[in-house]
């Protein structure tokens, strides 16, 4: 429903049914569903090299398994129809056949051959994806997963942000794959944006790597795919793929320290004099906590709470008052601030563009 609102500005039930049908068609045929704006993170609409490789492999696997299924189904239906007892001659027993070495050998060897084909295809795709090393000029990002949000650090660019990963598009003329180092601050999580790549677990004390190479600008959604506690469901992940120009200007903006606006000094002082600073960093405002998300450019993000709510004044207010009303179980406590202070802090946060 929301997808329709976002994509085509209408919410009719028929549109929903037809989009469901399109999704089904895409799922069954493996065909991409066209260019219509679509937030469904379908593995059949890959826009990035690893996801595309997997998609191709999956079509082969679907073909083989579908053929096997049809054979078994046909034989079984034949047997059911042909050899069902029709109530005649109840005492008579059919001829007893104890087995047949030749037939059984056939249905041992054929599956072995199929397995060999599947294995070779598997090994090939696995090599393509897993053995790829970062080329010169690749963008490097370190992903740190927390209960229940994502921290993104761009070590070469000096940028730290949260929950919304910005990467440039990679084209044939300007290939720019993104290599991600995955680290966890607490328990096991899993990084999964289906249209960009398969998932890779994010394990404490066991850094992993993965890579994406998005070929179309857009917003690609995913979420944590390994159960990680109370708000596993609320650990959403947005990847914003931008043209190189937009990406550069985003980086420029992110590198700047926080805006200092004298009009919201009350809020800033409150932020700095309460427990907020223990967890959050705001560069240039003397807040350097490293437990929660970096808020230096909070307002450049479309969502809060790792994607669970839109980033607008109303949601910011309820979040600052008591985040558990939006995200029950969240690690950030309700700070018991009076309404006046909540207002002042949100006034301040709203300036952090």
């Amino acid at each position, binding site marked *: *429903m929301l*997808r329709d609102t*976002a994509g085509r500005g209408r919410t009719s039930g028929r549109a929903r049914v037809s*989009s*469901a049908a399109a*999704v*089904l068609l895409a799922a069954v045929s493996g065909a991409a569903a066209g260019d219509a704006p*679509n*937030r*469904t*993170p379908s*593995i059949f609409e890959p826009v990035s090299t690893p996801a595309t490789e*997997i998609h191709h*492999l*999956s079509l082969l*696997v679907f073909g*083989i398994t579908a053929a*096997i*299924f049809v054979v*078994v*189904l046909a*034989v079984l239906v034949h*047997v059911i129809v042909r*050899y*069902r007892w029709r109530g005649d001659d109840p005492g008579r*027993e*059919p001829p*007893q*056949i104890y*087995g047949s070495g030749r*037939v*059984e050998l056939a249905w041992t060897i054929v*599956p072995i051959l199929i*397995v060999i084909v*599947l*294995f070779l295809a*598997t090994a090939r795709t*696995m090599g393509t*994806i897993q053995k790829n090393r970062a080329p010169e000029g690749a963008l490097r990002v370190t992903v740190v997963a927390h209960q229940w949000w994502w921290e993104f650090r761009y070590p070469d660019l000096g940028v730290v942000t949260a929950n919304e990963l910005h990467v440039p598009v990679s084209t044939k003329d300007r290939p720019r794959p993104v290599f991600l180092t995955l680290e966890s601050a*607490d*328990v*096991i999580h899993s990084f999964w944006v*289906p249209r960009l790549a*398969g998932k*890779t*677990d994010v*394990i*404490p*004390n*066991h850094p*992993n790597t993965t890579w994406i190479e998005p070929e179309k600008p857009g917003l690609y959604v995913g979420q944590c*795919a390994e*159960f*990680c*506690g*109370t708000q*596993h*469901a609320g650990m*959403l992940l947005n990847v914003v793929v931008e043209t190189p120009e937009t990406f550069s200007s985003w980086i420029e903006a992110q590198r700047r320290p926080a805006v200092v606006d004298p009009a919201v000094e009350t809020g800033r002082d409150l932020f700095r004099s309460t427990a907020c600073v223990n967890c959050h960093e705001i560069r240039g405002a003397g807040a350097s906590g490293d437990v929660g998300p970096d808020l230096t450019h909070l307002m450049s993000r479309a969502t809060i709470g790792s994607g669970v709510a839109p980033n607008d004044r109303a949601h910011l207010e309820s979040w600052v008052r008591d985040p558990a009303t939006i995200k029950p*179980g969240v690690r950030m406590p309700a700070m018991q601030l009076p309404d006046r202070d909540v207002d002042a802090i949100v006034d301040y946060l709203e300036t952090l563009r």
Partner: protein
Amino acid sequence: MSEIDSAAVLPAPGPAPLGARLHEWVVTVDHKRLGLMYVGAGLFFFFVAGIEAALIRWQLAVPNNHLISPDAYNRLFTMHGTTMIFLVGMPILLGIANYLVPLMIGARDLAFPRLNAFGFWVFLFGGVLLYFSYVAGEGLYGAGSAPDVGWFAYAPLTGAAFSRGNGTDYWIVALLVSGLGSIATAVNLVTTTLTMRCEGMTLGRMPLFVWMMLVVSFLILVAVPPLTAAQVMLLFDRRLGAHFFDAAAGGSAVLWQHLFWFFGHPEVYILMVPGFAWASEIIPVFSRKVIFGYPMMVAATVSIGFISLGVWAHHMFAVGMGTTLNSLFAASSMLIAVPTGIKVFNWIATMWGGRIRFATPMLFCTAFLLQFTVAGLTGIMLAVAPFDWQLTDSYFVVAHFHYVLIGGLLFTLFAAIYYWFPKATGKLLDERLGRWHFWLFVIGFNLTFAPMHVSGMLGMPRRIYTYPADRGWEPWNMAASIGAAVQAVAILIWVWNVIRTFRRGKPAGNDPWNAWTLEWATTSPPPAYNFEVLPTVRSRRPLWDLKHPEDPDWKYE
């Protein structure tokens, strides 16, 4: 003979007082009574875990649902999975083996009857302990109620830092205790099968059911102790300050996964091979044909047993193991499809050329063949490691293993219950209600789990208590929830069928299905000593030989 015996057992003529009869069940060491108690307890937990599943489907029917809080939901799926595996699957398969193995091999009881009783009571204690966490977890030091860490309880989420309170400790101790029971019963089944077969029953003449339960028992002996060890290590981490799995102190979170799945994957076969075992007895009888390729079936079962010990890390393709290990485990996981495929083909070949009677047990077995094929094929997809990177931990996996455990195991379990119920109670379940049960359950099951393949491929991860409305997952989840309701109706019809049959079921006679294995040679229900005279057999189908003296099996084997 039987009259004389019952007079010797009962203190007075007429039914004994209720207390005395209950007491008999509590102190019994009879394999049949223990088997029935295993199945009964397993079915009780089946209803509990079924209610948990219904709540899960209720919560997920629509996006952004706030019916159940996240913590309560996490407890629900943890308890649903743990219960279904350890308190439903394990006791029921051990219970049916308990009941049937001595009867099928012509023995009077298991080798160690008191160990058998110990195994049952320890399992039941473990089950009660697990559910006691719901009430007692809150009352002890720290917060917490039932465990909420998922049935595979990945470290370090289970560590003291992230799982406060006592829920995880209840999970550990309950499974540790019930695992002890499984090991005891497996020892018992192996010993019984190897030493107590009646005269003439060589290993090559054992019913396939007994062969398969022998393989299952060996698998239990190999697979359960590593889980027990890992759980003790986890308990040390949580309570004694050890750091086996505590990544923050240099422990290894991946080590837990290896230990758990070294148990966990053979466990899948421990649960599924009994389904094969039941089907291997039922399909021939209702096709009126001897099993096709008995030696191949035995060989396939044994090789499944062996290969299943070397596939565990296919649960861990996304862990970042490197190409070599990934390839190795992809290859072994694909390889296991070969013996499994042989079985499916041999069952169908058994039906080929037969005169198939589609009574309720055979209906369930037929649906099993097709649904299990689907499960096997999605299993191959999951073995294709790169494809698995997309599919693992998504609803596709949920669909896959429910096609194994419901489409495969539960369907064959219903077949087995309809088939052996008359032996255990002396009464036949109603066929008309059986058909209603079957068709509604086929529809409900497929309506619930087929759509999950799609929602998984559309990017829906498992174990989320709710989901946003903009991802195109709604229709698939709604369909699944409606399917769950249909399944519930089917189960209620079955319960009604059982209750009605107990009250006024048709008497079954000794051999209602015109079958061939030894359990049908004694009365229904069998006396405490099973057989007046221990039988002698000359072939795999002793009752066929008896019924067809002109064309006995032993001429061909």
